[in-house]
């Protein structure tokens, strides 16, 4: 196997198909190898070269990604089309621009991004060699930050602070009577945060307008922490608590049973949070 980095230089003579990032990459390589002008590609030659690369792959029992086959079909189509005399072409084709140009445009555009990717790679190579500092404890006699995860105690403590704030707001009259379920709030939290995103614990409660809503949101949060969709952490004791969403691109996989079984908690009412008042 010839390392991919050699390919970047464009000098590797024998290159495995797997070293190409896609059919466009392979085409660019062949165009360069055949010393063709990208604006004046010889379709016949290019198609022949392309297919022979694919054949070689098959001989070596390497699987060829579907995209390479689709491109093969496109090339064959374009080639045979260009062989047809103009009068034999379908009428709509004559009016249209030569579809070959579509491929050429795509190649030119792709080449620009490929070059940009190469430059990004060079920057990455340099900057991956620079190390920052692991955040330090403040060098003050009283300063203390133990690293780590947030204990349940910290979370509940922070939660009680938020509850107090909401009660103040409710007393001030800014209060809406709405009903929420834990399931709804789970959805809200997942929509609120993209994978890998991090927010302050308090920020998740900013929009809550009743005690009930805060409680339900908190239960949803605990549930998501249990499901490892979210994690709570802080830089040290008494530092702000942060909630981080697991870096996971897909939004599914949350068992739907969560939203069931958890009783709906009214927006305001007596004794709606028996388990939490105990903590």
């Amino acid at each position, binding site marked *: 196997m010839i390392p*991919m980095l050699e*390919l*970047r230089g464009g000098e590797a003579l024998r290159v495995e198909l797997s070293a190409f*990032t*896609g*059919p*466009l990459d392979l085409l660019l390589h062949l165009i360069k190898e055949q010393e063709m002008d990208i604006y004046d590609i010889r379709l016949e030659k290019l198609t022949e070269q392309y297919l022979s690369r694919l054949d070689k792959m098959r001989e070596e029992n390497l699987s060829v*990604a*579907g*995209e390479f086959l*689709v*491109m093969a*079909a*496109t090339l*064959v*189509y374009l080639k*045979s*089309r260009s062989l047809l005399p103009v009068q034999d072409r379908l009428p709509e084709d004559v009016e249209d621009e030569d579809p070959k140009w*579509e491929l050429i*445009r*795509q190649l030119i*555009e*792709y080449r*620009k*991004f*490929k*070059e*940009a*990717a*190469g*430059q*990004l*790679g060079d*920057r*990455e*190579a*340099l*900057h*991956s*060699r*620079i*190390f*920052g*500092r692991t*955040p*330090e404890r*403040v060098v003050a006699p009283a300063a203390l930050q133990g690293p780590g995860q947030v204990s349940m105690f910290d979370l509940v403590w922070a939660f009680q602070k938020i509850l107090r704030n909401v009660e103040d707001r409710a007393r001030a009259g800014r209060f809406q009577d709405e009903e929420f379920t834990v399931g709804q709030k789970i959805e809200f939290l997942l929509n609120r945060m*993209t*994978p*890998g*995103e991090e927010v302050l614990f308090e920020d998740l409660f900013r929009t809550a307008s009743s005690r009930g809503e805060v409680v339900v949101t908190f239960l949803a949060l605990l549930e998501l922490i249990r499901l490892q969709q979210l994690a709570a952490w802080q830089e040290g004791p008494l530092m702000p608590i942060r909630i981080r969403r697991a*870096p*996971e*691109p897909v939004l599914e996989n949350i068992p739907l049973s969560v939203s069931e079984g958890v009783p709906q908690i009214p927006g305001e009412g007596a004794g709606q949070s028996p388990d939490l008042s105990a903590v």
Partner: protein
Amino acid sequence: MREWARVLEALLFAASEPMEPSRLTTLLRDGPDGGQGWPEIKEEELREELAQLSERLAPRGLILREVAGGFRIGTAPDLSGWVAKLKGVVRPPRLSPPSLETMAVIAYRQPISRAEIEAVRGVDCSGTLDTLVERGIIRISGRSEAPGRPILYGTTPLFLEHFGLRDLDELPNSEELRRVKLPVPADPAGPQQKELLHEAVEPAS
């Protein structure tokens, strides 16, 4: 060396993320809680001092970088082997060529959907997108108004740090690549694509 250069260096040292010059200026002007700052400091003076600090650090195994809109002290690139050994770090793996390509398309054309990226690259990009999201270099930045409301991707501040960029304008060729007309993604379910494949095979047989 200005009187507040000491404070500046301590702040840059203690910061866990790149520090914007405006934030540094504000901090230095306001002073600590219950203490005195230098209210007359101007941002140009701060930038001068940053340049001087950069020179003072150079012979010392440390460098001052401007990344992600701010300044940050790091170890000199030529010492990376030493620091990696200290930290027991297997160097964070660099992105593969396919990931770099996907990354480049997103960097220049964000917010962008997976179908649009695939139209440029001509290959399935779900794997590289997963990798990039996982590494926190890109993130889902919204949903398109297009049919099916596809998810749109964009870069994160970590992207700038990873590639040592001050901001997105520092991307090479950014002017041109932002303007380039992108190929229109094929709708995999749509009839057009199926027809094309059909046509493409028939004449060859």
